[in-house]
């Protein structure tokens, strides 16, 4: 098919011409628009590029400025740290020179007094410099935490004991509340003990400084950080790159600057790490809310509360730095409006070294670890489990609390509360007398008014003591409350109450009333088969005022609990009970001790003579293991002068060889030596290793008493000695009186 269009030629040409113009105009128009458009877009593009360049340049400038400032600050800190070392060396020299000058002047002269004053000022300068140096070390990134084994419970106890003495002058009560006892159970840790102590001491010092009356309580909890994946503290969590940032990098790369840089101090909490949380709660003047954020800054002090208080304002800054290095955080906890004072809270992460948490059973060690550390299945998740576990623990250690009642007469409220609630956790019925004169009535009530509903907290003389204790906490940090009504084992506590434990605070005064009460107890005007009396005191002078079974120095915490438990254990240990104890299941060391006591009696163990004796060691065969010739000669002389027959060796390996050969040669039932004095630090085989080897060679029928000799007086050394199998620990040089005391204690323990 073909389509034909016909136009008249002339009309078509005219039309075409017109169209040409229009087309030309349109084309020109489009070209113009295109040109204008490209001009505009190129301008815009150039502007965009320019802005981008300017932005990039500014960012780079800012980054450089920041880096420069950081470098300057770092250099300043490093320079300051170096300068501080020079200053410290000079101060040490000044101290030395002052001491040398003191030698050449008369003690009564003004010059001598001035020199002593100079020495004291130098010591203060050194203290201030040490504080500043610590901070500069942290800022310069040169602070390295130590990694040593230590006992958390012991460290807390030492600090609180120290500040208790300081606080006595102000009449304050300072005590450690173990709450759920988790710290006591996970006490063996690895970390920087010295710096942890500094944190705690700093907070305690501040609390006491700013508290005029009332108390300062240290609370503590331990929790295992048991996740499989690494955890980071909340300090670092907010700084991690998130998905949006990753995506934004793909679309907007700006000069290689990544937002949310990963912090270089992130701390890894792997398996086995423990988180320790502490509260230092006082009833002092408190800290205004507006000052709380600034208080951890260096050199800051709350001025209006600083009247008469010394200090540089560095302590909390240093404490915060140390806490951060240990992976934790420090803050001020909000208190109720009715509560006065302040409460500092901090947490740190340490590596657990505890035998129970590592599931590593060692029979010999188990006797030397404090009793409460052997809670293997402890959980703070439910209050019932806490209570029943502690109860079960006491039973598993041979401490049956059935039939034990306790009468408390304590002056200080926190001490009374802590003791009361600990006893209740054990399952012991507790009654409280506010004054000595009320003790008779309370005793009467205890013996006659006992009921199964557990109304055991018969507190007399107060406006009403709440028998529920609220400081243990569950996993959400919620306060747990306890009551004897919730005790699932209460049925087992029914029956005759045979044993009475009386805990009297000598600081209540009124000794005549206390004495009369104890006389009344002794006469047996009650239904208890046995009773024991514990006296609490701050002063050694008042110790002898009352007849008692145990005197404990306040504050009552930590190791004092074990002593109270030990006394409770004695309730059932009559002569008949001791013979039966041989048959019961016990640890290796217990068995060995009991067996060796029998053999010691047969092997004519030297019994020390009482009274004045020029040869108190009475021909005891002593093996002396000491590598330093000087010390060995002195010790040989001391021992032989006191009547000992001394064999000396200069290292652990020779000691082991001598003991082994004598055991194999001699009568197996006779000890090759009556005593071994073992130096701890020796080259090659040290005293600890030698002792472990000797113990393994001895077998079950021999136990040679071994006393550790060490230059260090630290409690950790003593514990280390006991843990490796030694029986006692003495510091050098040997003093015959202390040695005799040690021998007596060992023979009492073994017998």
């Amino acid at each position, binding site marked *: 098919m073909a389509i034909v269009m016909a136009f008249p030629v002339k009309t078509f040409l005219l039309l075409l011409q017109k169209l040409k113009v229009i087309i030309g105009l349109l084309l020109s128009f489009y070209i113009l628009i295109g040109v204008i458009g490209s001009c505009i877009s190129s301008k815009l593009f150039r502007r965009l590029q320019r802005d981008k360049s300017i932005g990039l340049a500014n960012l780079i400038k800012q980054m450089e400025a920041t880096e420069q400032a950081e470098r300057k600050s770092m250099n300043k800190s490093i320079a300051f740290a170096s300068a501080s*070392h*020079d200053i*410290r*060396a000079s101060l*040490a*020299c000044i101290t*030395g020179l002052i001491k*040398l000058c003191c*030698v050449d002047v008369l003690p009564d002269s003004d010059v001598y007094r001035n020199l002593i004053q100079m020495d004291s000022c130098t010591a203060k300068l050194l203290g201030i410099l040490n504080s500043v140096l610590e901070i500069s070390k942290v800022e310069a990134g040169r602070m390295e935490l130590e990694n040593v084994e230590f006992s958390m419970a012991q460290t807390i106890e030492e600090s609180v004991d120290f500040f208790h003495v300081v606080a006595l002058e102000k009449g304050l009560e300072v005590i450690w509340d173990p709450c759920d006892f988790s710290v006591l159970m996970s006490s063996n840790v690895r970390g920087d003990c010295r710096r942890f102590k500094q944190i705690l001491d700093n907070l305690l010092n501040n609390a006491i400084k700013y508290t005029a009356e009332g108390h300062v309580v240290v609370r503590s909890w331990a929790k295992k950080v048991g996740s499989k994946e690494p955890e980071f503290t909340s300090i670092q969590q907010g700084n991690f790159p998130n998905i949006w940032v990753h995506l934004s990098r793909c679309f907007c790369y700006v000069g290689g600057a990544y937002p949310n840089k990963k912090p270089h101090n992130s701390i890894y909490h792997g398996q086995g790490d423990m988180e320790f949380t502490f509260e230092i709660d006082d009833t002092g003047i408190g800290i205004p809310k507006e000052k709380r954020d600034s208080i951890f800054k260096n050199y800051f002090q709350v001025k209006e509360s600083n009247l008469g208080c010394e200090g540089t304002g560095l302590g909390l800054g240093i404490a915060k730095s140390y806490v951060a290095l240990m992976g934790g955080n420090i803050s001020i906890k909000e208190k109720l409006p009715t509560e006065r004072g302040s409460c500092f809270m901090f947490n740190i992460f340490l590596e657990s070294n505890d035998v129970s948490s590592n599931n590593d059973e060692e029979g010999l060690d188990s006797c030397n670890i404090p009793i409460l550390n052997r809670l293997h299945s402890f959980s703070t998740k439910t209050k019932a489990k806490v209570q029943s576990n502690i109860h079960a623990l006491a039973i598993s250690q041979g401490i049956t609390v059935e039939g034990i009642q306790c009468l408390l007469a304590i002056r200080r409220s926190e001490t009374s509360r802590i003791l009361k609630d600990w006893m209740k956790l054990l399952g012991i019925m507790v009654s409280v007398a506010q004054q000595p004169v009320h003790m008779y009535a309370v005793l009467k009530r205890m013996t006659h008014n006992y009921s199964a509903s557990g109304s055991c907290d018969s507190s007399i003389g107060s406006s009403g003591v709440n028998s529920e204790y609220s400081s243990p906490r569950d996993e959400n940090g919620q306060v747990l409350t306890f009551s004897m009504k919730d005790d699932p084992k209460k049925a087992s506590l029914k029956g005759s109450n045979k044993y009475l434990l009386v805990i009297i605070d000598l600081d209540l005064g009124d000794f005549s009333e206390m004495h009369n009460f104890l006389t009344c107890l002794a006469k047996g005007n009650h239904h208890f088969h046995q009773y024991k009396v514990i006296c609490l005191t701050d002063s050694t002078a008042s110790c002898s005022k009352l007849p008692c079974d145990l005197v404990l120095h306040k504050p009552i915490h930590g190791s004092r609990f074990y002593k109270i438990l030990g006394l409770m254990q004695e309730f059932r240990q009559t002569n008949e009970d001791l013979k039966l104890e041989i048959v019961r299941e016990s640890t290796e060391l217990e068995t060995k001790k009991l067996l060796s006591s029998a053999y010691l009696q047969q092997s004519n163990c030297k019994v020390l003579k009482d009274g004045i004796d020029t040869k108190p060691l009475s021909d005891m065969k002593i093996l002396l293991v000491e590598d*330093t*010739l*000087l*010390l060995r*000669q*002195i010790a040989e*002389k*001391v021992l032989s*002068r006191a009547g000992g027959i001394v064999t000396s060796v200069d290292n652990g390996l020779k000691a082991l060889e001598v003991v082994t050969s004598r055991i194999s040669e001699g009568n197996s039932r006779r000890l090759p030596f009556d005593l071994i004095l073992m130096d701890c*630090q020796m080259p090659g085989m040290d005293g600890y290793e030698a002792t472990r080897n000797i113990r393994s060679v001895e077998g079950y029928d021999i136990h040679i008493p071994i006393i550790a000799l060490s*230059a*260090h007086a630290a409690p950790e050394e003593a514990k280390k000695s006991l843990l490796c199998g030694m029986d006692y620990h003495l510091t*050098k*040089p040997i*003093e015959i009186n202390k040695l005799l005391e040690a021998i007596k204690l060992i023979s009492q323990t073994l017998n």
Partner: protein
Amino acid sequence: MDVRLLQRQWVDHISALFREGFLDAQFTRLQKLQDASTPDFVVEVVTLYFEDADRLLNNLWNTLSQPVVDFKKVDAQVHRLKGSSVSIGAQRVKNACVCFIICCEEGDLEACFGCLHRLKLEFTQWKSKLEALFRIEQQIVAAGGSLPMI
């Protein structure tokens, strides 16, 4: 010289040593250990201490002079010297050791050198005073006398 004068000199000298803090109660215990069977016990142990301390001070200098200082080793050596000083009754030397141990724990090399210098000073002083004491004792014995009881 008259024996009594020598004995008086000895008493004054040893009293000054106690008063100025060079000696403490441990030295008295060592003197009490001396008897007829071991008449030179104190001199023997003090001589041992001189040798031990000399050697330890040299070792300390060598250890601190290393390019990389092993502070644990320094600490162990100072502890050893402290132990010997405590056993012999050299109180001021022991006190100097205590300061040294603190500097070791902090890893402060400059301060350690300062402490070593002070320790050497204390030991040298102590040694010279004890040597003077022993010289007087020898003179007393040579003159036919005996050492007074303190």
